[in-house]
């Protein structure tokens, strides 16, 4: 009897493992992935009222423990000021990049700037859901015109891109997530910046040695064909610029211009990569 029970248990486990393996394999196929995205979107919609209700109950308790009597208005004013400071910083950073690009621009018809794009302003309602991915949850979704793939910026620069969307919510993968890659440039030098994890700098690859990149330079999105982001959005400040001996590329690290642990309001740029 015990042997039969054990073999039945093993059979059930085998069945579940095979089912899970099949689901994982299917999730890598684009058609099945669309269906999974729809189910995920539906699940977000189902849980949204629960989340909202819990959040409404939880936030006052958390705020009480954190702070002062007038916490709410101070928090809101602080957030607006931070956004304003961030916007001014971004303008400043973009201006310095524009000055460097001026001569090259004369030869170009037009450079697409993030400022010229339609935006959806959203509030960050939650941070990482998983311990293995760096994401933000926004309070705007499909109903407001947000779709998967749209870039997300804060006042100072690039935050990430939308990877999942429900009717009134969206999930953003941060640029610091290890699975995130962004095409960047500094003047005429292009490279790819990859996330290294929470609180860490971004690593820039594929920059050949001997390029005029210096500590303190601001690298912006390259916007090259096939890129995930429009050109000219500040991503990070060069914090390490070195040329290791016998290396085929520069050793570069970027400190994100946006303090990703403090983001409260963001703009979702209604931009899609042009078909290649």
């Amino acid at each position, binding site marked *: 009897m015990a042997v039969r*029970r*054990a073999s*039945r*248990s093993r059979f*059930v*486990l085998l069945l*579940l*493992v095979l*089912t*899970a*393996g*099949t*689901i*994982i394999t*299917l*999730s*890598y196929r684009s058609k099945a*992935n669309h269906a*999974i995205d729809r*189910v*995920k979107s539906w*699940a*977000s919609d189902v*849980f949204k009222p*629960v*989340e909202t209700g*819990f*959040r409404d109950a*939880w936030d006052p308790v*958390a705020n009480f423990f954190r702070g002062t009597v007038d916490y709410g208005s101070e928090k809101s004013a602080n957030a607006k000021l931070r956004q304003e400071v961030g916007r001014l910083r971004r303008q400043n950073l973009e201006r310095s990049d524009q000055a460097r690009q001026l001569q090259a621009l004369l030869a170009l018809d037009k450079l697409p700037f993030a400022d010229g794009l339609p935006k959806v302003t959203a509030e960050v309602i*939650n*941070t*990482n*859901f*998983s*311990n*293995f*991915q760096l*994401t933000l949850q926004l309070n705007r979704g499909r109903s407001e015109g947000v779709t998967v793939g749209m870039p997300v910026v804060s006042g100072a620069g690039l935050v990430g891109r939308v*990877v*999942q969307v429900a009717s009134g919510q969206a*999930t953003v*993968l941060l640029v610091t*997530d*290890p*699975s995130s890659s962004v095409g960047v440039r500094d003047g005429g030098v292009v490279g790819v910046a990859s996330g290294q*994890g*929470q*609180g860490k700098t971004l690593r820039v690859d594929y920059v050949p040695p001997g390029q005029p990149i210096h500590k303190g330079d601001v690298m912006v999105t390259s916007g090259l064909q096939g890129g995930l982001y429009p050109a000219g959005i500040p991503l990070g400040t060069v914090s390490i610029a070195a040329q290791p001996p016998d290396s085929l590329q520069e050793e570069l690290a970027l400190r994100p211009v946006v303090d990703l642990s403090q983001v409260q309001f963001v703009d979702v740029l209604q931009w899609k990569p042009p078909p290649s």
Partner: protein
Amino acid sequence: MNAMARSRLLLVLFAAMALQLVVGSRINIAGVHPDLMVLTAAAAGIVAGPARAATVGFFAGLLNDLFLQTPFGLSALTFCLVAYAVATVQGGVLRGSWWVPAITAVVATAGGEVLFALIGAIVGQGQMLTGRLGAIAGVVGGVDGVLALVAVPAMGWAFRTEAEPARTRSRW
């Protein structure tokens, strides 16, 4: 398992998911959140037999996968293995003391996080094998060990049938 027990189980899974989404993801210890869904799978392993625990772990994982950007099914695979392993090991352990389930939950949930990253790396998500894996396993194990004092009785309540008092093992 009768319809009433199934409804209770569904309720526990949805409540755990809601708590994870709203409260769990806002608790931050050294940059790590507690993981209530892997705890649900471990708790199922503590109170039920291997097959039933693995099934609950699978569905708990599938529910969890709906809110992650990792490959769909990764949590389902991990959690069913965790639940099965816990149920199998628990079969040979006398559970007289209150701390046995707590210690089991610490080991199972910490191991679950490591297994999740390992399977993730195997299916192409190499970045999940992060240097923070030790910290993630430690924090998740520690917090889930404490929360097991609530989660295990809740799972026992979900599995209870009229003929079978809480925290007795299932027949299959």
